[in-house]
């Protein structure tokens, strides 16, 4: 299976990195920029030894390691092959 996992900081969590990037874009003349939030993106490929639901399996990866539920939310796109 293959999956793409997007991890975002929760809305109520401040993102000073995003804020700095937002300001940098503005200072480059992109004055329309209203907000920037920085997240993470994982591309995962597995071998054929697992045969259940790809999406559920990827969610497990998130809960066990990839995502800290205190500060982050995530989305999974997965395909079985």
């Amino acid at each position, binding site marked *: 299976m293959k999956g793409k996992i997007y991890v975002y900081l929760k809305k*109520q*969590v*401040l*993102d*000073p*990195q995003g804020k*700095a990037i937002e300001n940098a874009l503005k200072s480059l003349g992109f004055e329309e920029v209203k907000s920037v939030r920085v997240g993470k993106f994982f591309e995962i490929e597995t071998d054929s030894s697992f045969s259940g639901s790809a999406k559920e399996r990827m969610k497990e990866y998130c809960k*066990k*390691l*990839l995502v*800290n539920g*205190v*500060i982050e939310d995530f989305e999974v796109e997965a395909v079985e092959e």
Partner: protein
Amino acid sequence: MRATVIEFLGSNCDHDMVYFIRDVFKIETEVVWFTERDLKNPDIVLLPGGFSYGDYLRPGAMASRTPAMESVREFAKRGGIVLGVCNGFQILCESGLLPGALLRNKTISFICDDVYLKAENRETPFTSMVDRILKIPIAHGDGNYFCDEKTLEVLEKEKRVAFRYVSPDGKIDDNWNFNGATNSIAGVLSENKRVLGMMPHPERACEKILGSEDGKLIIESVISFLEKTDG
């Protein structure tokens, strides 16, 4: 009294921590590699600072999921005393032994400086001897303590904020809360108050030549606590 310091891949304050406990306090100290499960029967477990796994993914994320940390979790469940400093604090939060998380500093920059700490609850194994404002250094990029409002309410109500960043004269002041931590929180306790995570480095404030000996009060408190409970 016996102490165990856990070493993770990339820990870089582990030797400072061992020096603090073994050389300054003359406490019998074991060093346990993160792949081990046997903690060597300690009275206190210390999780050192220093960028385990290069802070990859999230600070403390990978270290919190190692065999040694499984044993630390069981040790804490049995009422064991655990102190996590800096990356050790991040590992405790990631492992679920402490609530909340450590976010990027509000300034984004890495901060290496002395801070001033006030012990908010003196009735804990770590703070009974802390009778003054402590001067202890910090050195971190991700020390901005965060938790949701409900958790924050519980922490404040149960007096689980061990230390807050304050001005040198002991006042809460945003100018002295360098990393932007929620409610100026520098150290957090577990429900049973026997697990403490803190961003400042007491092991770097243990001899006059280092500019402060204030960090010793935390270990002196633990020694006094253990003597009382043993007796």
